[in-house]
């Protein structure tokens, strides 16, 4: 179920004042079963890119292969492609239209030509997967809350049992819990069914937590296409592209610069916590008679991190930025760890 793009170009409204070269010579390969994150600031071409994956937008130039077949060949079965590549749009709740949630989720399977019983079976399964409570199945989709609508809409795509699931900012406008719920469900699906997942997001934290690989888009070009830790190593370049590495990356770089031998490649909060523990652990065991000092150092460092921005004692810009970005949760986390020690 691989998707391969060769020298793909897309131009909006060619030959007018609105002409925009949205995608420039994109070459990519997304193998089956991978969890890929696509990231880029507004207008970088992410949404345009993913709409190529199921043929909703036809490239101005270039080739797109799905399972080795060029989808732009005449006579290619687009309908089948759309059955296999499920696309969840940004704010998918705006596509709901049926009288109740159940019928809306059945819309996709019905279009696939399945029997009403099979449609219902798949709809139930999809609704359960997204974690929508049973009492809402017969409610009008317009009566649900924002998060519930979002779930119903995602279920509408899942019910088609796609082999590739593309999500365009599925968490935009949701609260932190709704965001984690939906992303955890997606990650669970990915593990359970082995489906390919392509997740578009603004949030480096989200992408870092789930993706095997990150594609960074910038001005219609692929800027990076690599494993998360390799991508985040370029955090200065990412900033120039209007993005940022996860807060953890900044903290780890900070720690390293201040002489704590941590691995700067970790990308999630829990990994970072373990890494800090390990680093501090080794430091302590190496200089056993200096235990107290080691602890002091760590504490001083903790204090430093939160003060650096204010004192501005010649810390490099990136450091200040790191402190600025470090959320309460993250710093608290690492501090707690140190205290426990």
């Amino acid at each position: 179920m691989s998707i391969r793009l060769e020298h793909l170009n897309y131009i909006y409204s060619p030959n007018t004042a609105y002409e925009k070269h949205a995608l420039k010579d994109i070459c990519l390969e997304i193998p089956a079963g991978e969890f890929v994150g696509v990231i880029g600031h507004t207008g970088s071409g992410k949404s345009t890119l993913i709409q190529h994956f199921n043929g909703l937008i036809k490239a101005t130039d270039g080739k797109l292969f799905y399972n080795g077949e060029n989808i732009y060949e005449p006579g290619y079965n687009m309908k089948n492609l759309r059955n296999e590549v499920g696309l969840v749009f940004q704010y998918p709740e705006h596509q709901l239209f049926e009288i109740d949630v159940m019928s809306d989720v059945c819309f996709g399977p019905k279009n696939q030509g399945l029997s009403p019983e099979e449609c219902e079976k798949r709809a139930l399964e999809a609704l359960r997967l997204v974690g929508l409570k049973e009492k809402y199945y017969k409610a009008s989709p317009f009566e649900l809350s924002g998060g519930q609508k979002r779930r119903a809409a995602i279920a509408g795509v899942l019910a088609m049992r796609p082999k590739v699931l593309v999500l365009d900012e599925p968490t935009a406008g949701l609260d932190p819990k709704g965001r984690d719920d939906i992303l955890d469900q997606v990650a669970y699906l990915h593990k359970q069914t082995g489906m390919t997942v392509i997740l578009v997001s603004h949030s480096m934290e989200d992408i870092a937590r789930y993706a095997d690989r990150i594609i960074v888009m910038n001005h219609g070009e692929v800027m990076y296409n690599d494993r998360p830790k390799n991508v985040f190593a370029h955090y200065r370049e990412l900033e120039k592209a209007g993005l940022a590495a996860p807060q953890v990356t900044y903290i780890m770089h900070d720690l390293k610069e201040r002489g704590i031998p941590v691995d700067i490649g970790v990308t999630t909060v829990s990994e970072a916590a373990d890494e800090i523990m390990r680093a501090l652990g080794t430091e302590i065991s190496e200089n056993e008679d200096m235990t107290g000092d080691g602890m002091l150092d760590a504490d001083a460092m903790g204090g430093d991190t939160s003060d650096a921005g204010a004192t501005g004692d010649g810390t490099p810009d990136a450091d200040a930025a790191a402190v600025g970005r470090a959320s309460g949760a993250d710093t608290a986390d690492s501090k707690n760890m140190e205290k426990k020690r």
Partner: protein
Amino acid sequence: MIRDITIGQYYPAKSILHRLDPRVKLVSTLLYLVSLFLFRSIAGYLVATLFLIGIIRLSRVPFGYIVKGLKPVIMLLMITVVFNLFLKKEGEVLVHIWRLSITTAGLRNAVYMAIRLIYLIIGSSLMTFTTTPNELTDGIEALLNPLNKIRVPVHEVAMMMSIALRFIPILLEETDKIMKAQQARGADFESGNIIQRAKAMIPILVPLFVSAFRRANDLAMAMEARCYRGGEGRTKMKPLRYKGRDRAAYVMIAVYVAAVVAIGRYVPLKIWIF
């Protein structure tokens, strides 16, 4: 696709037409439209064509872009042409098919009508291409201002028009997005008979209505939050003032109308039946 609908849209460019006072453009467009019906000879059409070409060149809107705007009215055009072609019974018969015949008068009428309609649409869309919705509203408001005396809510009417115009591209984009979302769920808008196709529109129309109402509600709220309360006592940050080029434009349109009527009526040019 649906984004290609260009009729009634603003086209950003830097031209003398873009800089003209909206009142001049409104009045001129109106005069131009009326003038198209004040003559019926080929000489008049030649003058009108030259004038239109000149205006298109001045506007710096690409010709292809203007032609694209004609697409939605092709059906209307065809119907007009067909009716004129077959239903006019005067003049000598040119072609006779079954019980239908095409006469010289019919052919002439059909061609003239088609040209008039095309010129009419191009002329009026040139105005919207070169005038932003805001300017257009200001222009309409200023021109209709005398009606205020007989208690016509001019400002409100103008505001509604400008909102309607402003929302065309937004709703088109929304339609495009919803269509794509439903297509991604396997919806098919192209095949089937007319009833099936009409039914296939439901998944687009329902969300579109919902979103239109939501947007209208949001807009009303946003306007109220900024203390909008209609036209009474409202002053303008940039009041409309005529400049030299606007006066020149008035003179030009007057000269054109006089010329096209005079030449169209009194210059005896005839090619074949036209």
